[in-house]
């Protein structure tokens, strides 16, 4: 801050709305919290992943440094692809991201955002409400809702299927992977819908009116005008939903990772190793690999964001 009197020498050069010292003070509380609960865990998890630390027993207090031991166990190619092993979870998660995020959420969100532009307000509002409700309600509630929905004997889905003459099924037991794919698509489509919706509404209406005048069909307007203009939003959306879906734990609330590890996504695998088998070292190694994959996506995303800002 500058001095009161005109004759005194200034303490700092340059006026700013907030002086550097005040700015540093303002940043301190957030800085401490983030340092302890975000940045420290990042480095700590790397450290722990090189030890044989457990929750209980001798190695809980005095863990030993075992080098890449945990990683070697994870990448033991004798059983890498077996159910309940790291490789199985990793590949399952990749498929899960591919089907539920990239195909499911993004495409459905895009379709919904486009439909909503043109349909009557009542249809728009009702559809929007349910799509957003699926996204906004607490995950445990959603997990239970789907549990009831899919129940073999009484669930709403089987009731509907039998009423139109189709055979009922015990989907959680027979097709658990597809259940969590549909579940996650349903749960997360709202984000893509809203992102694309705001992208579409940022396009000046005159662009579409000009196309109308030129005689373009709805499909042509979508393909030739809307899509190219929202390309940046699509990339943003794909990266964000990929990262979120890759890390999601919510399917655990519907399937517990089962039956027999068939829906054990990498986050659920990580949880089981660390907190059910109590192998912290190995769990930390899984965490490190998850973070490395996250880092790759985050760097792509941030570099794209920087480019956009410069342009």
């Amino acid at each position, binding site marked *: 801050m*500058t*001095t*009161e009197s*005109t004759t005194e020498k*200034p303490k700092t*050069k*340059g*006026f700013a709305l907030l002086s550097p010292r005040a700015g540093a003070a303002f940043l301190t509380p957030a800085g401490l919290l983030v340092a302890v609960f975000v940045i420290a865990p990042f480095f700590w998890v790397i450290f722990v992943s090189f030890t044989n630390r457990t929750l209980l027993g001798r190695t809980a207090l005095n863990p030993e440094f075992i080098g890449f031991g945990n990683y070697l166990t994870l990448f033991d190619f004798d059983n890498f692809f077996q159910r309940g092993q790291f490789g199985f979870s990793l590949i399952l998660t990749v498929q899960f991201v591919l089907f539920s995020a990239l195909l499911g959420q993004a495409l459905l969100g895009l379709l919904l955002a486009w439909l909503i532009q043109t349909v009557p307000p009542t249809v728009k509002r009702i559809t929007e409400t349910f799509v957003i409700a699926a996204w906004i309600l607490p995950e445990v509630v959603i997990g239970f809702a789907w549990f009831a929905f899919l129940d073999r004997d009484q669930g709403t889905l089987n009731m509907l299927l039998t009423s139109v003459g189709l055979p009922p099924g015990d989907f959680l037991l027979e097709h658990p992977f597809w259940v969590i794919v549909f579940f996650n698509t349903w749960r997360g489509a709202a984000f893509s819908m809203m992102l694309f919706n705001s992208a579409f509404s940022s396009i000046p209406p005159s662009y579409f009116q000009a196309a109308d005048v030129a005689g373009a069909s709805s499909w042509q307007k979508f393909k030739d005008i809307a899509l190219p203009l929202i390309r940046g939003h699509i990339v943003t959306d794909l990266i964000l939903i990929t990262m979120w879906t890759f890390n999601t734990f919510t399917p655990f609330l519907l399937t517990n990772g089962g039956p027999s590890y068939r829906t054990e996504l990498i986050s659920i695998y990580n949880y089981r190793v660390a907190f059910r088998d109590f192998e912290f070292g190995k769990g930390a190694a899984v965490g490190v690999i998850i973070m490395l994959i996250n880092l790759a996506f985050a760097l792509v995303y941030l570099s794209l964001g920087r480019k956009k800002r410069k342009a």
Partner: protein
Amino acid sequence: MASVEFKNVSKSFGEFNAVSNINLSIGDGEFVCLLGPSGCGKTTSLRMIAGLETPTSGQVMIGGDDVTYLHPKDRQISMVFQDYALYPHMNLADNIAYPLKVRGEAVAKRHGRAKEVADVLKIGNLMDRLPSQISGGQQQRTSLARALVYPSRVYLFDEPLSNLDAKLRLEARGFLNHLQRDMGMTAVYVTHDQAEAMALATRIAVMDQGKIVQYAPPIEIYRRPATTFVANFVGNPPMNLVPVDAIQGDGQLQLRAEGLAIGALPMSNGIAKALETGKTLTLGVRPEHLLIATEGSPNKVSGKLFANENMGPESLVTIERGDGARVTARIFTDDHIQLTEDVTLSFLAEHVHLFDSTGKRIPVDNEAPLA
């Protein structure tokens, strides 16, 4: 009220020099306009008076005190911002009275004073409204009221009228002129609108690329523009500038250019000096000094008719000379002029401005000072 002075002030933002070594002295009670195109450094200069920017080098003085590094709050100045900066969560009374609040005045007293000022500005009946509930013109007057509510040493205006539509802008301009006559305040007013500067200022500082090109009363800026830049910037439409070849002989000066016929001019010391640096001069004639030529006019410029715009009391006639350059004349007549395809315009020798090859005005010998 107080004087303002810039002493060798420079301000750079990284590589960019916004203001380069300017010196400017604004007397107590003067209304000075900083005029120039965007990016010329005028707003940066104003913000250095306010304390919102700190000079890279040099001194800013208010009332003889060095305020270069003084915090804005301690400068006892007021400022009207381009976007008005009215606080959206406060009603008009609280907005106008805010400077009194931070000075520790009691509620009743400060609202009383705010009402007085608001009444003068004809917004006294809107004191309970929020800024979002009043018109653009009323918002402008509210921000003016907030600047006037406490005694200031200097009043700063950053393009205060640029967000108003044309009609309101004229009205507000007239009011500011009245206020200046009434209060005799020291004011620094930034604008890119030359008409606004001409109408309001006691002196205008024309700025270009971080430098002051000319600092003079409006009439001098208009009649004796120091450079082609000033000539081109002040006046609407701007002065016609025609590059001419100068040929010296017999104590006389001949000027040659495509489509131009001009009688010989007497040589002067100024011209002689200008010709030392280059034989190509620039001839300038203001559009309002051009007429449709009649038989026997000595100074003429001719070309093909390009446009003929009737503005009501006047017509703007633009011709295109053989080399493609255009010349515009402001012809004062209520009637729409009928013109053939070829048009010749004429002008008097006394209305000729001459600039040397670097764009500087060539002074006439023994030039009398302007009143």
